[in-house]
């Protein structure tokens, strides 16, 4: 474990790595890079880049799935990565979000999508509190199995409750209201070089049945909001309290951290984001049934977080992409997908236990340096 963070002695002599070079770039260049990156993400489903684009399934649809996984991973990262609570039943919240959409827009009411999404978030959050309040007092190891049980309880309730559609699920979930601003063409590579194909376009932002790209854009927008939220909250008292609780719960409590309250908060926020992802999923799918919320999904979600590097938001994003994209990209493995996935998990655990992108403290340390300099300057000037 201790190999992940460089000691001061080791840090100084090494020549600046990629990361340092990027962080040292002028601010304007950095902003430009970010903007270019955002545009790239925005256009990704239409660029049809060879090799990256999935052959077996629609790339826009796959990217949307990847985006929901990213969102879920960000939410679960708050619970697992920041607060250190092992949650094996996260799919329960995902299902609750999706079913709130289903019930309120199709099955029992026809409320507007814009109204229902916040309701879905709130209901998922409340269910997180209801589950967390009694169970977060039990030991961490047990929490895993309790949450696993919760995920199953949710699914079985969905299967067996006719009010919620039973095994038939809920269909005809309406599309969200959209607006049509402009069309974006796609790129065609069939002649070997990129050619702009003006006939295959996606409209920003029209939510149809046969074009998943607008849903991907929606998810992209939601992800950036959640990321911003994550960054702001993590770098505050709340984030520190979570980390302290994860590191040493008793010591944190003795340093004045109401650990239970913060664990519950992490659980509720994680649940809310899980519910939001479920809501997006239901919106795009138009049809939901308990089959879409199998226990295996919880495990995949957790794997996304751990594979990427629990505690590092960029890491878990990478993890989510790995877990959701690769099985689609390599559909030709077909029957062997799960086997390969299992092997990958084992190898990763053995050879890179911190995840692909372990939490990096160095960047944060650098920022703290700057802050200190600012403070000293301030004092000097007074």
């Amino acid at each position, binding site marked *: *474990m201790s190999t992940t963070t460089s000691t001061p002695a080791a840090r100084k002599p090494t020549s600046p790595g990629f990361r340092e070079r990027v962080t040292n770039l002028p601010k304007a260049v950095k902003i430009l890079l970010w903007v270019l990156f955002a545009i790239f993400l925005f256009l990704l489903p239409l660029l049809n880049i060879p090799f990256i684009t999935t052959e077996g399934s629609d790339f826009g649809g796959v990217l949307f799935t990847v985006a929901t996984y990213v969102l879920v991973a960000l939410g679960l990262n708050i619970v*697992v990565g920041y607060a250190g609570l*092992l949650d094996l039943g996260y799919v329960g919240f995902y299902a609750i979000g999706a079913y709130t959409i289903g019930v309120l827009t199709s099955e029992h009411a026809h409320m507007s999508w814009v109204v229902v999404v916040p309701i879905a978030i709130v209901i998922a959050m409340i269910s997180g509190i209801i589950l967390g309040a*009694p*169970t977060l*007092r*039990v*030991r961490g*190891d*047990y929490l*895993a*199995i*309790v949450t*696993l*049980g*919760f995920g*199953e*309880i949710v699914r*079985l*309730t969905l*299967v*067996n409750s006719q009010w919620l559609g039973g095994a038939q699920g809920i269909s005809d979930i309406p599309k969200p209201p959209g607006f049509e601003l402009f069309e974006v063409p796609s790129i065609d590579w069939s002649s070997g070089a990129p050619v702009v194909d003006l006939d295959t376009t996606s409209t920003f932002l029209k939510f149809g049945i046969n074009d998943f790209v607008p849903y991907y854009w929606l998810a992209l927008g939601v992800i950036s909001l959640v990321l911003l939220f994550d960054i702001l909250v993590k770098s505050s008292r709340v984030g520190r309290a979570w980390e302290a609780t994860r590191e040493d719960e008793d010591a944190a409590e003795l340093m004045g951290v109401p650990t239970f309250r913060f664990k519950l908060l992490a659980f509720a926020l994680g649940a809310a984001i899980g519910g939001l992802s479920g809501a997006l999923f239901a919106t795009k799918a138009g049809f939901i049934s308990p089959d879409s919320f199998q226990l295996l999904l919880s*495990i995949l979600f*957790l*794997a996304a977080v*751990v*594979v990427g590097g*629990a505690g590092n938001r960029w890491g878990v994003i990478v993890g989510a992409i790995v877990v959701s994209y690769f099985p689609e990209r390599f559909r030709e493995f077909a*029957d*062997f997908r*799960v*086997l390969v*996935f*299992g*092997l*990958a*998990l*084992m*190898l*990763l*655990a*053995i050879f890179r*236990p911190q995840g692909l992108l372990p939490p990096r403290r160095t960047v944060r340390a650098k920022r703290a340096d700057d802050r200190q300099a600012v403070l000293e300057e301030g004092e000097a000037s007074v």
Partner: protein
Amino acid sequence: MQNLIDNFFAYTITGLTIGAVYALVALGYTLVYGVLRLINFAHSEVFMYGTFAALWVVMLLGGRPGAGVGQVIFWVAMMFVAAMAMSGFIAVLLERVAYRPLRKRNAPPLIALISAIGASFVLAEIMGLRSRITGWVGLDDNLRDYVRNSRNNAGMPTIIAPQPIFTVGGYHVTNVDVFVIVGAIAIMVVLDQFVKRSRLGRGIRAVAMDPESAALMGVNRDRVIQVTFLVGGVMAGAAAVFYMLKIGITRYDAGFILGVKAFTAAVLGGIGNLRGALLGGFILGLAENYGSAVVGSQWKDVVAFVLLILILLFRPTGLLGESLGKARA
């Protein structure tokens, strides 16, 4: 409810039979948790491989209904040998491949869990893909019956025809019921004595109590851990035999839910506590059956999980308390 009261003994006896299987599988979780403080997520697959070993040995020996007593005893004995060997082997293999490398690197428990989940997928999928895997090496023709339809159920001929022996409250208790319940308890007693009295058993307890002191006192921790996995695996093998005698059908994914239930049983009784596992298994089996009788079988798993949550709320260390080292076992 009326149905439960009318058929109370039927629900009780059948609940105890499946509870015995839970209990034996729960032992594996409890033992490993006791010495390593981690949830051996892949233990369910150890059990599943045992069921297949039991099935295959019966197929190999040409097991069929209505054979003579001597023949049946031989078959059942061979089932035990095969299933225990297979499960024990898989458990030790698991420890070697999925856990030991992590332990050497001092990885956090969460990583061990991920490794275990990976191992669980790999083991289950190998069984689920056995027809294709054996196809590559060209053994398909010889083994066709053993690997056919590998994503589907695999059924075993009934070698012990259930015969009512005596009647309790209107329920005809069969020879299989008695064999499973009594057999499971007997195996538990043997294990209890093994942990209590043998040198290796004392080693297990010492490591469970305090790994560092145990190491100082000359206990070879790696060896103890290996033995713990082996013992847990052998118990799962025994469970697999009982399961096959009672249910008779297995599948590549048969371990998963049963594993979750068994883990629930272990936590119910107090994880790390051997007698707790037995108690937890029986209680879970009963609760599921009673619950199914009252609210319908579709809520069976919900009953089990709600029970678990309630127990953890009101008695967080399980019914009999934790710790392999300190508890009486």
